[in-house]
Structures are given as C-alpha cells and as structure tokens.
C-alpha cells in the first residue's frame, strides 16, 4: 500500500488547530470547480470527477475543501476518493501525475493480443514527466484488443505509433459514432410501447405476465427472471427507486457498450417502462467511467427524451470511477449514494432495502433493451428464439480472443460454444485451434475444448463449477497459456476486490502470490478455494477462484508446470 515513510512522534504546529487546515480561497476554488453541483453527499463521486477532470488530480487540499462544502469529514471524502482508481490523490509536496495518462487494457484478450508488450513499448518511447502508462483492467473493448484509453478517447487494436500520435491531440471529448438518436428512434417506431403502458393499454399486471412468460433473465450475469423481479419490487411499499446497471466490468464483456453506442433509446424506453410498471419514482443510470462515448450519448439522449412530449420518470446519470465491484448491484447502490463500493450483506435484498434504503428495481442494460420488443411481440415470440425448447430468447455474446471475427454476437440462448464460433464468428482465427475458453468472463471459469458442446446458457456450467454470467466468451488457442490467463484473472480480482471481507481480500492476494511463486500445493489451493467460495460476502470473492479450480481440474499439466 502506498503510505508515507515511517513516522516518529511529531509535534503538531501550535499555530494551527488540529488536522489539515485550508484557506477560504481553497474552498472557493473547489466551489467554482463544482459549478452548479448541489452540495449533496450522494454526489460526492460526481464532485470528485469534476475536480479530477479539471485539474488532472485531486489534492489533499481539494479533499479538505470538498469535505467542508459537503459538510463531511475529510476522511469521508478521502476514503471514497482512494477507493476508485480513476482519482489521483496528490498529497502536499507531491508532484501531480503527468498531463497525459494512457490506460492500456490488460484483460485476458488484450493480454493475449500483446497488451503488456504495448505497455513496455509505450514506456520506452515516452517521457514519464509527460506521459503515464497505466495497466488498466478490461475497458470493455476486448473485440478490439489490444485497446487503450486516453482522456475521453478509446483506441482499439492499438499500436504504439497510433497512441504516440494520439497523445499530442486533444482527447478531451469522445468520438461519437453514428447512433440512433431520439428523433430517429421515434421515427422508427420507438416509444410506442411506452405509450401503451402509459395509456394502460398494457397494464402493469399484463406487462409482468408477458415478461415472465418470455423467460427474459437478468443479463448482467445473475440470470434472475426479470418478470419475477418486477413483481417482487412492486410488492414492497413505496417510494421505490430504479437503478440501471451500466457498470459492465466483467472482463471480456462489451455487449452493453455495443448496444448503447448504437441504440441507446431501446434501453431508455425499457427503463421507463419498467419504472412505470413497478412504480419507481426515479431512475439512476450508473455507467462505467471507461465508456466515455456512452456517457456522452446518454447525456445527450436523456436530455432529448426529457425535453420531448413523452411523460418520463426523472432520470439521473451517474458515472463510475474505475471499480469493477460496482457492477455488483449493492456495491453499485453504495456508489450511487456517494460511498465506497462495498457490497452489502443479504438479506435484506435490494428489492426490499436498496438505494437510499428504498425498495429498488435494478436491471442490466441488455435486460432492459429487450423490454419494448418483448412487450410488443409477445412472450412466445421471445421464448421461441432459444437454441431449442430448453432455452429461451436471444443473447448478446461478447466474443473475443482467437476467433476470426470477434464482437457482439446476437445468438440463441443455449447455443453450443462450437456453433457460436463456427456460425457467428467465422470460425477460429487462422492458425489457431480451440484449446480453452472462458464462457462468462473472468469469474465464470475456464474450460477445455472438450466441453465446447455444452449449451451456452444459465444453469449449464454450474455443475462444472462455473457459469455463463454476462456471456463474455474468451477463446484461447494452442498459442495461449491457460495458466497465464488464469493468473490474469486472479490479478484482476486482487486488483478489484473491495477489500471488505477476509476471504476475498486475503484470498485473492495469496492466490496471486502462490501462482506467481509457482506453488502447486493442491491442499493449500483447495483450502483457499473453499474459504473464498463459502465465506466471501459477494460473488466476486465466491467466484474469483473458479479459473484456478479449473486450472487444477482441467489443465493439470499447466497447473504444476
């Protein structure tokens, strides 16, 4: 941990009261940076963003001044700022970070595509006083690996030369793709389903029934039936709130970004419908900071929607700050409340006690974007889209790694992996044969090619100690080391563990150390996997060891190498 050197008894300055003192001018500076942001605790992260965006860092003086403005203790600001990796805290006497930061994604696919070589090349080619190169967790561009991120600009299939050219450009605004705006979405028949819900042509009961019949499941990874969730939350006494989880951080997942960069209003209409049906008073959309393009699209399109004649439930856009754990719904709620993203204990579930203590409906983006179409075309239509009668609906698979055509593949739920590769991805990349794959990002486990006929759906991988989760499929070939991929996932979980509970905080760190040391003591791994799986508070710690478990089970030669 980054702490300052050894301290011996210090005589504090008697000419000042205890603790860090600030001047009225410091408060004025931060007040100006906040602009019109209301001084509310739940907006703490947004306030920190405004300082970081304007100054390129957050000084301890800023922290103290912000604390005074928000009427918080300094530590309440510091602990939040230090939890999120996109805030650079600069202490008195320390130099601020260099003006340019290149974040190179080091997810499994990006590592396979040479991300660490790219980092080395960039470090060698740049002046550390001007450029900082950061190995970042997956930034949701695995189909463009290796990917990098400067300011608000994303660079896919990035090369050293491309990035070196980019650092002298203005990267302060995102490149907006050609997407379906409010006008075009409406012209294409958008928001008609919402209109039916508003006019009670579709009643809440009917909507819930259709959703349940369609078999739509939570596509953030947990797979909870959406219709049932609507029924639950609606059953709790209001006021109720809604959250939209756009913190798509599971390594290898990029489907939500894909949809939001093309059809943002599908999700917005779905969210408005869900909030109407369930009776939520406000919608909080939490979008990961790694998606500056999506954030900008949303900013524009939410304004367009709210300015239209369509009656809407108020929406608020919140921006993450570099914390995978905030994709866990209760951690996301803590983050929306302006706190560190620590998952909560269950029970109570957020459906009962969620955001600001209110019953909360939370949905993933992809889940919501199916809502208008399902309500329009009916439960049977959607249910019939599955691979066979055992599987319902369509899924957006994020496929990356050694396939010819990586990307988001809209395919039937339950499709066997091999068919997904062959029919949707143009087969394996030239010269590569399937060796292993991750069916559900870093946490869903890693399986050998021999299991490529297993249906890609919820409930299919659990018997083997894995899961499909967010349908982030990473394909490894004979050219790749499974062990390296497993270590990559474990390093990721150590980096992203919130640090709250012992099994996850200690377990991920110990596991990385053991793998790095080349330890092959099975009993030690088994004990560690057991305590992480049984005793971690949330899914991160419980699932973090899946890949290691599979390394031992399916790839013993690489485990003991």
């Amino acid at each position, binding site marked *: 941990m980054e702490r300052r050197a050894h301290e011996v008894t210090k005589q504090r300055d008697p000419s000042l009261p205890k603790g860090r003192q600030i001047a009225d001018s410091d408060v004025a500076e931060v007040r100006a940076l906040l602009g019109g942001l209301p001084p509310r605790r739940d907006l703490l992260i947004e306030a920190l963003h405004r300082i970081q965006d304007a100054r390129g860092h957050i000084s301890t003086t800023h922290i103290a001044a912000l604390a005074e403005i928000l009427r918080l203790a300094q530590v309440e600001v510091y602990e939040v700022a*230090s939890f999120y990796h996109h805030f650079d805290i600069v202490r008195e006497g320390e130099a601020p970070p260099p003006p340019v930061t290149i974040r190179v994604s080091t997810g499994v696919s990006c590592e396979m595509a040479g991300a660490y070589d790219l980092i080395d090349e960039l470090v060698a080619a740049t002046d550390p006083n001007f450029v900082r190169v950061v190995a970042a967790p997956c930034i949701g561009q695995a189909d463009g690996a290796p990917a990098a991120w400067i300011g608000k600009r994303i660079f896919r299939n990035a090369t050293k030369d491309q990035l070196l050219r980019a650092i002298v450009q203005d990267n302060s605004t995102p490149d907006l793709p050609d997407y379906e705006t409010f006008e075009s979405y409406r012209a294409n028949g958008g928001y008609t389903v919402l209109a039916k819900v508003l006019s009670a042509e579709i009643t809440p009961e009917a909507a819930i029934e259709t959703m349940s019949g369609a078999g739509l499941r939570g596509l953030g990874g947990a797979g909870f039936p959406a219709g049932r969730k609507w029924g639950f939350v609606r059953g709790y006494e209001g006021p109720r709130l809604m959250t939209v989880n756009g913190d798509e951080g599971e390594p290898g997942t990029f489907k939500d970004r894909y949809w939001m960069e093309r059809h943002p209003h599908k999700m917005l209409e779905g969210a408005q419908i869900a909030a109407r049906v369930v009776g939520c008073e406000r919608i909080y959309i939490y979008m990961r900071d790694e998606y500056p393009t999506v954030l900008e699209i949303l900013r524009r399109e939410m304004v367009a929607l709210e300015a239209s004649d369509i009656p809407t439930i108020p929406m608020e856009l919140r921006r993450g700050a570099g914390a995978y754990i905030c994709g866990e719904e209760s951690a996301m709620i803590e983050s929306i409340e302006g706190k*560190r993203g620590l998952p909560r204990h269950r029970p109570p579930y957020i459906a009962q006690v969620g955001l600001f203590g209110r019953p909360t409906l939370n949905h993933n983006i992809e889940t919501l974007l199916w809502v208008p179409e399902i309500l329009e075309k009916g439960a049977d239509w959607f249910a019939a889209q599955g691979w066979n009668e055992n599987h319902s609906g369509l899924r957006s698979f994020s496929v990356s790694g050694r396939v010819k055509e990586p990307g988001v593949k809209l395919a039937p739920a339950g499709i066997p992996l091999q068919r997904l590769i062959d029919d949707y991805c143009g087969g394996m990349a030239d010269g590569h044969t399937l060796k292993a794959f991750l069916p559900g990002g870093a946490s869903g486990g890693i399986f050998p090619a021999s299991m490529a006929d297993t249906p890609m759906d919820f409930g299919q991988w659990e018997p083997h100690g894995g899961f499909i989760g967010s349908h982030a499929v990473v394909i490894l070939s004979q050219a790749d080391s499974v062990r390296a991929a497993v270590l990559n996932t474990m390093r990721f979980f150590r980096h992203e563990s919130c640090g709250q509970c012992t099994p996850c905080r200690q377990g991920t760190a110990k596991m990385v150390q053991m793998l790095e040391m080349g330890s092959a003591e099975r009993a030690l791994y088994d004990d560690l996997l057991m305590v992480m799986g049984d005793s971690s508070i949330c899914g991160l710690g419980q699932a973090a060891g899946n890949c290691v478990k599979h390394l031992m089970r399916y790839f013993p030669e690489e485990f003991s190498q």
Partner: protein
Amino acid sequence: MSLDQTPLQVITFTLDGREVTAAEGESIWQVAKRQGTDIPHLCWKDSPGYRADGNCRACMVEVEGERTLTASCVRQPSEGMVVNTANDRVSTNRRMVMELLAADMPARDTSPDPDAPFWTQADAAGLTEAPRFPSSRPGAGKDIPVDSIFHDASHPSIAVNLDACISCGLCERACRDVQVNDVIGMGGRGDHAMPVFDAADPMGLSSCVACGECVQACPTGALLEKTLLDETATQREVIPDCVEPSVCPFCGVGCQTEVSLKGNDIVKVDGRQGPANRGKLCVKGRFGMDYVMSDERLTKPLIRREDAPKNPHGHYTFADIPNLFREATWDEALEHAARGLTRVRETLGGKAIAGFGSAKGTNEEAYLFQKFIRQGFGTNNVDHCTRLCHASSVAALMEGVGSGAVSAPFTAADDSDCILLIGCRPEQNHPVAATYFKQAAKRGAKLIVMDPRRQGLMRHASHPVIFAPGRDVPMLNAMIHTIIEEGLTDEQYIQAHTDGFDALKEKVKDFSPEAMAEVCGVPAETLRDLARTYAKAERAIIFWGMGVSQHVHGTDNARCLIALSLITGQIGREGTGLHPLRGQNNVQGASDAGLIPMVFPNYRSVEDPDIRAEFEDAWGRSLDPERGLTVVEIMHEVAERRIRAMYVQGENPAMSDPDQAHARKALATLDHLVVQDIFFTETAWFADVILPASAQPEKPGTYTNSNRQVQVAMPVRVPPGEARQDWKLIAELALRCGHDWGYREIDEVYSEMAAHMPSLDNISWARLMREGAVTYPAVAENLPGENIIFTQGFPTKTGRAHLVPTDLVPPDEMPDAEFPMVLTTGRMLEHWHTGAMTRRATALDAQEPEPVVAMHPRDIGRMGLQRGAQVTVETRRGAITLTLRADRDVTQGMLFIPFCFVEAPANFLTNPQLDPFGKIPEFKYCAARISAADTATGIAAE
C-alpha cells in the same frame, strides 16, 4: 406506547439441533451466546453502540439450504431456519479465515499485543499451526521492522502498527459510529484497504482528538496505548498487575473507567459501561491520568519560610518550593494551619475567614468542607468554582423551576427529535456527552448549534447558527416572540404549569425577529425557522454551557432558555428538558452538598430560621443567619483586608478568577492562607501552609455528575509520600479548631450528609457500593432513579414554574477604537480548568503545550500579524504574550484564549464585572487589542 412496551416478535429456529427463540433484531451470534456457544469473532465487538459489520468472516455459520456460509454476527435468524454453528465445514472455514489473517501478522510473541483478542480468537478457531500462506508484508511472521511503512508513532498517546492490522474496520466504527469523531476511515481498496486518519495523514498530525475508542476496540493491538509498548512502539512491554473500577476525575460527564495498574502506576484506562458514558472516554480520561504520578506531586507538608514574603507578581515553579517553603511534620503543619485560622477567629471573628472548597473533590469532602467553615467559624463565606461556571444558570433555574439540577440527562438526546445547544462546545468540554448529540443528528434529529464561534458540531447540525457574541437575549427573545406570535405555544401546559406568561408575552412584543436580526446577527427568517423547529418538535431539549452563563446577563440568558422550554411544554417528558452542562466532575455534587454561601446542603436557605435550626441542632452551635460572600466578592473583601484568612482546598483562584492581577494581589495580602492540594498551584504560591492531599484515584467517595448520577469510586492507588486523604485533613483541621467529628470511615460522612439531603433518599451507601451509580431522585431503594424530573409540575412553593421576562442588556465592556476586538475565554479539549492536572499529564501537554490566542486568518492578515509569532493581547486590566493561532472557527473581530496556561493566564485580561443574580463574572466578553509582541516571551501583566 413507548418502544419497550411494543410486544417483540419472537422467532423460533433451530440452532445446533435445538429449537431456540430469538427476539426481533437479535443476531444468530447473540442467540448462540445466550445459549452458551461462543462463536469466534474479530470484527464484531459485543458492546453497546457497535454495529455488526460481518466482514472478518470469523463467525461463519451454516444455514441449511443456503449455498454459502453466513456471518452470524450480522445475520438475523428467520422463522424455521436451521443453523449449524459447529460442523467440519464451518470450523474449517473459520480456521482458514484466521490462517489467512495470521499469515500477514507479526509473530504473536513480538506483536504489539500478544494478549489481543485476535490471538485468543485464533486459538478458539483452532488455528494451532503456523500459517502456510505467503505474505507480502515485511513484518509477517516475525517482529515489526522499525522502519515498517505500516508503523506510525507520530501521535503522543497512540502507536499505530498496521503490520498487525486485519482491516476489520472496528477502529472506523469506534471513531465514526460510537464517538462520531469521524477521523478514521478505510482508505484504498482490496488488499490495500487499511485504516487511515483524515486524508491518510500521520495520526499525530491528523484531526484525531485521541478519545482512544479505536484503541479500546482494536482486536489486534494494531492501535495501542504507547504506555504499554517498548521504546520502539512496536512491542508490548507493560503487562498490568490488576484492573480496578474507577470514575473519571475530569469533567461533569462522569465517565466510569477501568484503570489498569502496574504497581502504583496507572498504565492504561478504559471506559466502563457507566450510565453516562456507555464505555466511552475522551482524551483526558483515557490518556490524561499520569498527572497523579507526576514528579511535581506534593508529598510533604510545607510551611512558608519566614524569609520568603508573598510576592503578588511572582512566578514560580515546582523547583522554587524550597526557596519559599520548608518541609514540616504533619502535626506541625496541621497545628500551624489551624492556629492561623483560630487566631483570626479569635481576633476578628469568623466572618474574617473564608473557604473555597472544590468541585473536583468528593461529595463527602464538599459536605465536610462547608460544615467546617460554617460550624468552625460561624460564617457562610464558603463557595467554590461553580460561581465561575453555572451560578447564573442555577439562579435562573432556582427562580424559574425551583431546582438547580438538570431536568434530564444528556443521554435524553437519544429520545429527542430536536436538540438545541447554545453557548457550549461539548466536543471540547464534554466530549462524551457530545457523542450523544452527534449520534442523534446522524439518526435524523434536528440539531441546533448556536455559538458566536464556529465549531465542529456545526457540521452535524441541521441548524448551525453563528450569532453576535453577548447577544443571546435578543436572539432567544426573538424565538420566544415568534413562538407566541405564530401560536406555537403549548397553551395547556402554560395554563397548567406556569405563571408569568402574560408579562413575558408583553415583554417579548418588542423582540420581533425582524427587529432583533441586526442586533444578534442572525437573519429574521432563520430566527423564525429556529423557533418553529424547536417549538414544533415532538420532543425538544436544550443544553447550554458557559457561553450562556458567563455574562453579566448570564441569568437572563438562562431565563430565556427556561421560558422557551416552558411555553412550548418541552420539559418533563422523555427527550425534553433543560440541561446546563456541568464543567467539573463534581460541581453538581459540591453544590448539592452545600458548598455555596447562600444555602446549606440541598439548596436550603441559610436565611430560613427553621432550616438553620436543623443544622444548628445537628452541628451543636449557632450558625450564621446571613448569606455568605461569593468567590469574586470574597477576593474583593480580601483585597479590602476585611477577610484575613482563607482555607482553599483543591481550588485555584489565582488562575480561575477574573482580573487575575487583582486576585493575586489580594491573595498575597492574606494573613493566613491554608492551601490543600496535590500540586504547587498558582494559589499555593501565596500559601502559609500547604497540605499535600490525595488525587481522585487515591480517595474514596461519591461524585455527582451533570446527569444527577451519584457515582462511587474507591481508591485504586496510594497517595505519594506523606500525602493524605482530603476528607481526613478537613476533619483533622476541624478537630484542631475545636470540633471532634469522630468519623471512622467515609460511609459515615455520606450517611450524615444524606440525612440532611432528601434528594439522596433511597440512595444508601450500601446501594451505591452495590450499583456503582444511582440517579437522584430515587423513589425507592429498589427502583432506579428518575432520569426525567418535573413530570408532574415543579418543586416550587406553588408547584408551578415561573416565567421571567428579560431585557436587552449589552455586554459590560463593548469594543471601541482603543480596544477593538472581542476577547472570549474558555477551555481546550486537552486542558481542563486551570491546567493544574492536565498540564502535568504528559500526553495532554504534548498535544497543547503552549499558550495560544486564536484568531481568524483574515483578521491576522488584515492586521499584518503572523501566525506562530508571539503576540501581546491587552485589555484594560492587563496584557499577556502568547503564540498566535490561525483558526477559521473564530469569528472575525474576536479573539479566543484558553485560560489554562500559567505562562499567559487569560484571566489577567478578563472583566470581573458580575451578573447581578448569579454573581458570575463576564469571562466570555471583554474588549481587547492585539499586537506583535516586543519581547519573545514573558508575562507582560501590569
């Protein structure tokens, strides 16, 4: 129906094969404990105020049908649940949790605290082998490297060794939930998540107030008292011999303590579950007790040398004692002390004698002291420092509601939905009481904080109000005006329980918020909002301190507060009332015991012949039928040579009285001054005889805190050298002045005192020994005392409270061209009263070692001064030189000086002008000027 009458839902579930029941809100851990199963735990502290966090995972249990295990400390059982607290899966998981944590810990033997709960819990969880996991911490498995990046010894009292930290967050909950000091948090994330102070600052440079709650909570010794560690501050060195119960000697909160001793030395203090503190302490109680072990304790009786005249301008230290005094035997010293008093009695009469007792001593000492003065010399010239604190509050309360005591404890804030604090800074002066206010605010209660200076509590307040100094009456009358004008009064209550409302109503007509806004510096709309918030609250309570009382209009200030509560009926119910926060540990008790010139014990008038007859019968002589003189009046009479001899026990008028140059000159003129103390105080400089006495942990007796809780403390250590018990010294002097009291033990004194005090009915010595603390009044020996009084009217002649209208009286000395600043005085967190004790407490003095005057940085800039430089502050009475502190809490135009520093005594400057009713001086307001000091140091008085 109150909460405790609500029928609790009972949950039936199966615990380890047995059917058990849980009350609503009970955790599985708590039920298991009740059933006799101790589930290992680290981050869960089984103590009031600590919420379960469930993060360490040492207390995992299995709930049948659930995929994963669950933390029993945080999980509540549900109907029909089947829970296993002991099977292989559960025990393996717990052992693994312990092993994972132990892997990063230093070796037990060389860890900061080998006796810490972590190690005993690891034993309980079955961790017998050395941990198998690698660690990246440099100190793992061995001793902590002295240059460890996790080691922080920057704080004078607390050593931080995060090499032994398990990131369980108990310190954070201690700091944030229990004490609400909000200094500690968890910084970073993942395996970098560690406790931090402020913005990850060294603890000693952070805003930490050293309440030490984190130390008491830490389960590993990662946060530990430095007194227990070796010189590297990483390894435990001191193991106490025993732990004894005691009561804190500092402020009026009355925290119960647990004192750890090594030999005769106090090495550690913890909070006990007392009714006032619920396990909490502040920096003084926890880290300030080494004053009793000070090398400067008086250990021998001393008699002034004939070649050492009293010098009113002298400045002395402990080392000067041999130049001024000679050591004497007890017999000689006591005889000399008594003879000096009897000589004055015989030549000039008893009224030429006066005594200052102490609010720091026991009730028994206070009772004996006033008995000695009254019986021994036939005079009522006996007083104590309550005169300088709450005399005006007591005057107003006696007049208004017939009792000077608080109507509700500060813990009533728990039940209140509007808490009004005015003229008090409890975070500094009553830190543990402040925790209840902050907790109430966190739970959503309205918190109104009114003060001329900004303060930390205002961050928690729904209504922070900075008003013009000395303008309490216009502000409060504007609130009363609003309440009456807007029909927010409780008519029924007024009719049933008060008189004088019409006069009040008439008087406050002139005090509209619109008219008063400019006078008090608070906008009219805010004044109206304050009035509405207080009046409309279901339950509202008022707390106040010296900022209200220490004014020439102090009694009027208190009258306004009393009126506010009476006209809204915010008194006599749970969560309502009036509470003047008492400054000293026994100021309530000393006043109750009659250490006041106007009254015998229990506030019974010396002027009432019937009452006097009772005491004359009891004490066997005729008593003075006239009120005696008060503290400041006595000093005045001394200066006029009408009082010629004094007995001062544990008081320090040479530091605490206003216009100190005058006070010291007076003391120097006394024919005979007996000082009984534990230190060579500034008052002792003028003594003829000094009697070395006992410190609080060395003596038996009872203390009554601000909440009317009578608490008993027995000696935990022996006094140094020849120092003796105070009560025995008073009795010895009485004997030598002709009154053989014949007490053998302290309980006899208590019983005699209680016999004169109906307030102590049903509170026998035996009961106190049994229960430790009893609130008065108590209606029966077997029933708890009454926390809330005035539930059925008031102890006045009519049974009704009396509303007293007040006028606008400006402070006595307003700023002018010559003296343009307003000087206010008070305390600081670390130093208590005149500093006699706390300046001699190593850790406290390390925190605040030198006299300072605090001023707003803008004023400093405007006047071309430099913070940190020596400045001279001057008033019409004197000047002192001290360090300039830049403090944004001080309003522009004001200066604040704590009065605890002998090097620069604030009371050289203060105005001795008295409140006409309470006879309390105006410590909180006088005109002053400030300039860069010509000389570097030194007292520039006169």
